[in-house]
Every structure is written in structure tokens, then in C-alpha cells.
């Protein structure tokens, strides 16, 4: 090799080193121990029948380290998830009212003196604790969708994300399997749900002491899905309370007026947000014996909500005919 070619090779090696070693990549190398299949033959074991799958339901908020989901929207289906090594205290909502399958959960805000600095968060003992850090879970595999999904973590935040073509198959068993990383591997289960189809112009009207009657196309007989109704009044994410209701997937349900009143009593400002979600929910305890990861298969649709006598607006969202937008206060008058 001539000196000239040595220089060229050195330059290219330098480039190669800079492109690979000099700039950080995502997952650790040993995370590539994928496909640790279910038997010694290297072939994955068949998934159990949907009727045989047992769901452990949602995590308790106090130990919910993370969530994985197969989330179907009107446009696409995504698989996504993340798990931390702890719980952010403000995400542990307090149940302040309960009736008819509904729970009104209120956000608490712990106080620390002095306030916690960057990288810390305040717990309910008034102590600053490390802000929970997302963790490496190794390769995460989801089976039972239209295609097998295998995900490596992405940075920052050890996020897992994929968009499988066509998404989920209603009635089919879905398995989530995390292969390692921070904790021993774990698996959780779901069943593909039918799309939640709602009229595009559906509007829920929230009025004092008035039940909200919900209707949707019921799931097929034998479906494993349930339906969750969610309603809050967003205040830049600091909603004082959020209303959750879980109903059988029968096509109709009633949200009690007393629960609506409880939500209204927590304050009406900003933009009301409502959704109806058909879903299955499972969860799995992590190997630390404390943390829990949730796995949700969901088809959710947002629904327009109006609070009687209170119509928000801004330059991008004009008022109905006959009303004018007071942009200073973002309300139709």
C-alpha cells in the first residue's frame, strides 16, 4: 500500500469511526439478543386462543412504571411504549367520587421546600426524589397483529415505537414480550379490538345534573373488549379532575349526572376533551416486585364536547352563528 493510499484509508477510517463511535447510538449492543423464542427449536410458540387469555387489568397508579399500547386511530395503528424506574408522584391521581362505573380522579400536587431542582421531583412526603428515568427493556416484540413487530429502544427516553401496516386483527390474541434490559423480561396480553366507529359530528353536551347517554356500535358477541369513557377540562395539562368510566362493550351506557356535576365543580376552563375507547387491558409486575407495566389494545376516538353555556373559541376555532368570540377570554359571547 502506498503512502497515498494509507492517507486515504486513514481518512476513511476516521470518517467511519466518527460516524459510528463518535456519535451516540440508541440501544446497547447486548440488546440485540432478540428472538429468544419460546422453545428450543427457535420457533415461536403459537399464541393461545383469545378466550384463554387472562387479563390482570390496569396497574395501580401508585406503581405504574409504564405503558405499552397498540393504539388504533382513524388513520393508522401504532405500537408504542416506555417504562421508567419509578412513578412520577403527580401522576398518582386521587379518587374523589365514584358511581355507576365512573371514577372522578383528582390531581394532587405535592410540596417540597425548597423546590426540587432539575432532575428531581417532589414526592408526597415532601422530599425531592430522582425524577423517574425511562429504562432499557431490551428488544420488545409484539405478536398477533397483521405483522410481527420487533422494536429497539429509541433515544432520548428509551422509547419503543412502530407503525405496523394494517395494525390489529379484531378478536386475535396479542402478545407483548420484553426481552430484558433493566429488568428480567416480561410478557403481557391483549386481544385485537374492533374499530370504534362514531359519527364524525358526534357532540356530547355537558349540563348540570344531567346524565350523558352514550351510544356506540356494540362489539361482536364474545368479544373481550370493554369501553372506557374519558372526559376532562384541559388547563394546559393541569386539569383539576378527570372523569373515567368503564362500561361493558354493549353499545350503550349512562354517565351519571352526579359525576358530571362533580367534574363541573372542579372548574370549567379551557377546552373540554372527551374520548371513547374500546380496549383490553392487561398488566405485568416487573422483576423488582414493585413496578407494573400496562399493556393496552385500544381503538379510541376523540369526541367533541360542549359544556352548556360555555363555548370556548379562538382565532382558529370560531364561534357558532350568532355568537362572537371574545378572544381575550377565548369564549363565545
Amino acid at each position: 500500500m502506498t503512502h497515498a493510499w494509507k492517507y486515504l484509508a486513514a481518512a476513511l477510517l476516521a470518517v467511519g469511526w466518527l460516524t459510528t463511535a463518535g456519535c451516540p447510538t440508541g440501544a446497547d449492543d447486548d440488546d440485540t439478543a432478540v428472538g429468544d423464542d419460546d422453545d428450543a427449536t427457535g420457533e415461536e410458540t403459537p399464541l393461545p386462543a383469545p378466550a384463554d387469555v387472562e387479563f390482570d387489568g390496569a396497574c395501580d397508579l401508585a406503581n405504574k412504571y409504564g405503558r405499552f399500547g397498540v393504539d388504533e386511530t382513524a388513520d393508522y395503528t401504532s405500537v408504542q411504549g416506555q417504562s421508567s424506574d419509578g412513578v412520577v408522584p403527580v401522576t398518582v391521581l386521587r379518587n374523589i367520587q365514584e358511581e355507576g362505573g365512573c371514577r372522578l380522579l383528582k390531581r394532587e400536587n405535592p410540596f417540597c421546600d425548597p423546590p426540587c431542582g432539575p432532575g428531581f421531583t417532589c414526592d408526597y412526603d415532601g422530599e425531592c426524589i430522582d425524577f423517574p428515568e425511562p429504562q432499557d427493556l431490551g428488544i420488545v416484540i409484539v405478536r398477533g397483529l397483521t405483522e410481527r413487530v420487533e422494536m429497539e429502544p429509541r433515544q432520548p427516553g428509551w422509547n419503543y415505537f412502530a407503525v405496523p401496516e394494517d395494525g390489529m386483527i379484531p378478536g386475535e390474541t396479542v402478545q407483548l414480550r420484553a426481552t430484558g434490559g433493566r429488568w428480567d423480561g416480561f410478557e403481557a396480553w391483549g386481544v385485537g379490538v374492533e374499530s370504534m366507529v362514531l359519527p364524525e359530528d358526534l357532540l356530547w353536551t355537558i349540563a348540570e345534573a344531567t346524565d350523558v347517554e352514550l351510544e356506540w356500535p356494540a362489539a361482536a358477541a364474545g368479544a373481550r373488549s370493554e369501553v372506557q369513557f374519558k372526559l376532562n377540562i384541559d388547563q394546559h395539562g393541569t386539569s383539576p379532575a378527570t372523569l373515567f368510566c368503564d362500561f361493558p362493550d354493549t353499545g350503550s351506557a349512562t354517565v351519571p349526572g352526579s359525576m358530571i356535576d362533580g367534574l363541573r365543580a372542579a372548574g370549567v376552563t379551557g377546552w373540554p376533551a372527551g374520548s371513547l375507547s374500546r380496549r383490553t387491558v392487561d398488566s405485568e409486575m416487573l422483576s423488582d416486585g414493585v413496578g407494573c407495566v400496562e399493556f393496552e389494545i385500544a381503538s379510541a376516538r376523540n369526541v367533541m364536547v360542549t359544556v352548556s353555556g360555555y363555548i370556548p373559541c379562538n382565532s382558529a376555532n370560531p364561534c357558532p352563528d350568532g355568537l362572537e368570540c371574545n378572544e381575550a377570554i377565548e369564549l363565545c359571547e
Partner: protein
Amino acid sequence: MLHRLFPAILLLVLPLTGCPTDEPPPPTVWECRIPAGEDVDFARQIGCEADFDFLASLPLDASIPGARSAKTVLDRTEADAQYFQNSNRYLIHWEFATAHLSAPDHAPVPQLAQFNTTEYFSPSRRFLLGAVTYYAGPGVFVWEIAPYDTMDVDMITTAFRSIRDNTFFGERLKFHPTSEAVSSTAAGLPDDIPIITTDELFAGIDYQPLNLATSMGRLAFVEAEDVERVEFRDIVVLEVVPNDISAVQGLITQAFQTPLSHVNVLSQNRGTPNMGLRNAWTNETLRGLEGAWVELTVGAFEWSVREVTREEADEWWEENRPDPIDVGPMDTTVQTIVDIGDVLDLENLSLEEAISAAVPAFGGKATHFAGLNEVPGVPNPPAFVVPVYFFDQYMTQNGFWDRVEAMLVDEDFLSDTEVRLATLAELRDDMEVGTVDPAFETMLIDKMNNDFPGVRMRFRSSTNAEDIGGFNGAGLYTSRTGDLSDPERPVLDAVRKVWASVYTDRAFSERTYYGIDHRNIGMALLCHRSFPDEDANGVAITANIYDPAGLQPGFYVNVQEGEASVVLPDPGVTTDQFIYYYTQSGQPIVYLFHSNQVPAGETVLTNAEAFELGQALEAIHNYFLPVYGGTAAFYGMDVEFKFDSSAGNGSELYVKQARPYPGWGAVE
């Protein structure tokens, strides 16, 4: 030969690696990045003023006047991709991120609540979020992060440099810490990030919008000593901030006001424009219109004045004169002193009904105080109420009602300001020395001796036309201290002086402006122990008065060391004024002004005291929500409080008043 090319090869290929070099990039030639007339959702760079103007909106929080902001998003999953969002279309970061940086082309952006749990707090957050803001007063571009954002030094540095390198004003860009917590972090920033403080921004601001409104009236420059002689159709220019002012159509003060000053609360109640303007007294535009009929508009970011004809002004007045407020007659059926816990009939009535039922007998202040007494966790002193019956008795027994009746049909009194002022002064003088019914005197003294032995008491006005929805009555009436064991502070003198304040010039004028029948006005007395040795006193609004849309919920607090006034500080005296983001993680405090009555670098309230106050404000806000909130455009309670250690238990919080706050431009 090739060895000579080695450096050149490296130079050619290094940029492809994506890694930085030490070589400074060539200076950017800035041109507009948004084609003229094109409507875009975001830009990757701001190349000219037109780009900024297109992307920027009025900030959600207008606590520092004259600002326009474009929100910034740095996506760390995409090699620190920089975005400047169309902030008119996307009011908050989440809306933009959801629309443009989410699945299926990007990693999903979570729901709003989850987004806000991580993206302003997590060390491993995906986004670095902020806003570039142009402050017109001082003429500076700054980059700001949310006051509750816990970005560390590296994050701020990364984001700031990205903004700097992607904007035409980058070389002039400064970092503005928006809260005490952010200031602490900013102290560790490297030297290439210049910092500008809130104080420095305010120093460059000439215009202070206090109440957003438009009105027409006659422009009058008024000396402080003549403030009682203004006419109700005047738009008044003053050098100083008066404690009170009779009903006028607009107010411009050369001195800046505190938002909770009586004149501002009254302006808000009346729906009339109110602003501070440096050098207003010599402002050529205003001086050129002195004595003329004008239209004054106070906007969130700018003001305007134009001459109109008398006919236009008359027409405007006819269309906009306030609707008469029907206070209704006093309720004189309650003929004994009542403990505060017995004022509201909450066993049989809703809170709203109970308040409506109690006000005619106990007045607005005492009724709301009774409500405070019901709010768990809100400390207020034990109290009793002298109902309006005894005021009515005093007026009748001394012949004062007859004199009021005569005044109200006297043409001279009604049409001549000097006659009116003199007649009212004479009535007040006589009311301060009238004869108190002996049975009432005995009842009052027995009550004080039995329930408050040896306690110096505060007698506070509580008319049936104050602290009610639609009529605030801030500062119209007076309070006095009485002590049975102190000959310098006779109890009956206190009672009579408070009763006489029903007929102050301003109270009379204000009621007249609103068409309130003076014959219906009675005054109850709210009585509780006095606070002669306050550690701190203040007023607070249970809402962020600078964010009428409610997207940045917080409490506004104005507090001062000791007993000094917060609503009308002495000249040269400043108070602590801050927005308390109580519902946000870490409860950040954003100081707008600092008190000069405490050592530099200190604050009037400790963090723990602010949190205790926040708990009380939240409880009060929620308690009165069904009455004054509901679907109201803007809801907040105006709360007076103090910290006092005279009980010997350390500095304790007491809430002494709560009333509905009219809001910022919320009154028609």
C-alpha cells in the same frame, strides 16, 4: 500527493458525519424563510422580521406588557431539529407537536396530561420547549422557558444556541428566566448566553394596560387634590395613583398601578379603560386633546385615543351607560347580634341561595366572611355580625333618614358638586356623633365582654351593596378599631364612624352612577379581633389575572411586609407581586415586582407561607365556584389575607375577606 489532500478530504467528509467541528460556521446571510403571503404551520428558521411577525402571537400570559411570542420546539429525537411553530394556530406546544411531530411519521406524542408530566420536567424528555419573545418596550428578543420547566444548564444551553443559530436576531438574543427556580439554574449558564431579568424588562416598558376596554368621554387632566371633583363622563389623566376615584369613563395614570389597586378594581367593575403610561402628564397626544371629547381604547399591548364629536360621545353614552343595579331593600328582620356561623342557612339552602338570602340583612362582606368560615382549612378569626337593622335603627332614631330623603329631592344637591360634597360632609359629621340606642349598646358590650373579653376589635363595613356580583364596592367604605379597655379607642365611636362612611363622596357617587337607590342601603358590621401587629398583609386573586383564557392557571398575589398598604403603596414603596403557579409541579413563583421593604434578595413570604396561602386560595376558589364560577367567562375571588404572629403560635395565616373579582376586561 494524496497525503496533501488528507486534510481536504476530512474537511469534505466531516460535515457528512453530523459531528461538530471547531471551525466557526460562515456568517449566515439572513433572508426571510417564509415566502410572502404563504400560510405555514411552522418554520425551521426565522430569517426576518416578517417571519417573526407571522409566527408570533400574543403570549398566553400578558404579565409583562407589549410582548409577542413565537413558541419554539427542539426535537431531540431528530438530531435536535429546531421548529418555530405558528403560535396563532397552535396556542400550546402540545398542539403543534401532536400535529407535526407525532405518529405515523414520528414517535407518538402522548396525551396532553402525559406530555406535560414529562416534557417540562423529565431529564430524558424528547422536546426542549420555550418561546422567543419580543418585548417592544425595551426592544429586546429573549428566549424563555415555562416558569415551572426544570431544564438543566445543558438543556437550556443546547436550546438557546439552537435558537440563536436559527434566527436573524440570534446575536441579540438573551435568556429571560421566568421564575425564581429558572433563575437559580440560569446562574450556571455559560458566558455566551446573556441573561436579562424581569426587572430589566419592566424598566424599558412605558405602557401598563390595567383594564381592557373602550369608552368615550371628555379628556381631563386632574391634579391629585381635585380628584373628588371629576365628572362621571370624564376620561381622567393623573400624575399619581389615587386611592379612589369617583365614577369616570377612563383613567390614565402617569405612575404605574398595582393590578389590585382600588381604582383598577373599580375600573374593572365599571368596565371602563384604565392604563398606566409613563410621562402621561406631558404626553403631547394627550395634551393636544385636553378638554376634547375622545375615544380611549386600552388594549393588551397598545392603546389609542382619538377625538370624537360631542354627538358621538353622547350617543356612545346612551348606548353604554350602566344598567341600574337593583340592590333591593334592607332586611331588618334580624334584630340581634349574630355569630358568624349562623349567618348562612346552609341546612336549607344552596350556597348561592344562602348568600342571596343573607346579604340584605348582613351585607356582602359579612356574608362572604361567613362563607369563608365554612371552607375547610381556611383560617379566619372568630367573628360576629351586627345586622343592618341596627344601622336602620340609628338612622331612624337620629333623623338621618329624613335628611337623606331631603337630599335626594334637592335639585341643588343633585346638580351642584360643591353643594353635594358639603351636604354629605355635614351628614357624616353628624352621624359620627349621633345617639346610639341604649339597648343596642348594652347588647354589643355584653357580646364583646362575653365572647371577646379584653380583645381589641375591628369593626368592618358590610353594606348590602358591596362584594356582590356586579358591584364590587372596593374601597368605598371604612373600618375602625374599638377597644372596651382603651379610652383612646371608644367602641361606639368606631361603630358610628363606620356607619357614617355610607355617605362618603365616593360611595354616594358610585352608587348614583349605578342607579342604586340610596334609600335601600344599609350597613351591617363585621366584627372580629384586630390585627395590630401583622407580619405581612396582602391581597390575592384566585386566578391568573394576566391569563384570562385560563391556559396558564395560577394565583396573583400582592403582599407586603407588615401593615403597609399593598393596593396603594406610598410613593417609592414597592410590594412583592407574583404569579403563583400553585397547580404546577414545584409550585413555581414568578415575581413581577419585588418589595423594597425587605432586604434585597429576600421575599416577603417564605415558600412554606406561599404554599399555605395557595392551599387556602384553592379552597376558597373551589368553595365559591358554584356561585360565581360555573360557566362565567372569568372567575376569580378577590381575597384579603394576613400573616400574624400575635397569637403566639408563630406566623399564622388569616383570611379576612373574599369577594367576587370582576376580572380583566370581563365586565361589559
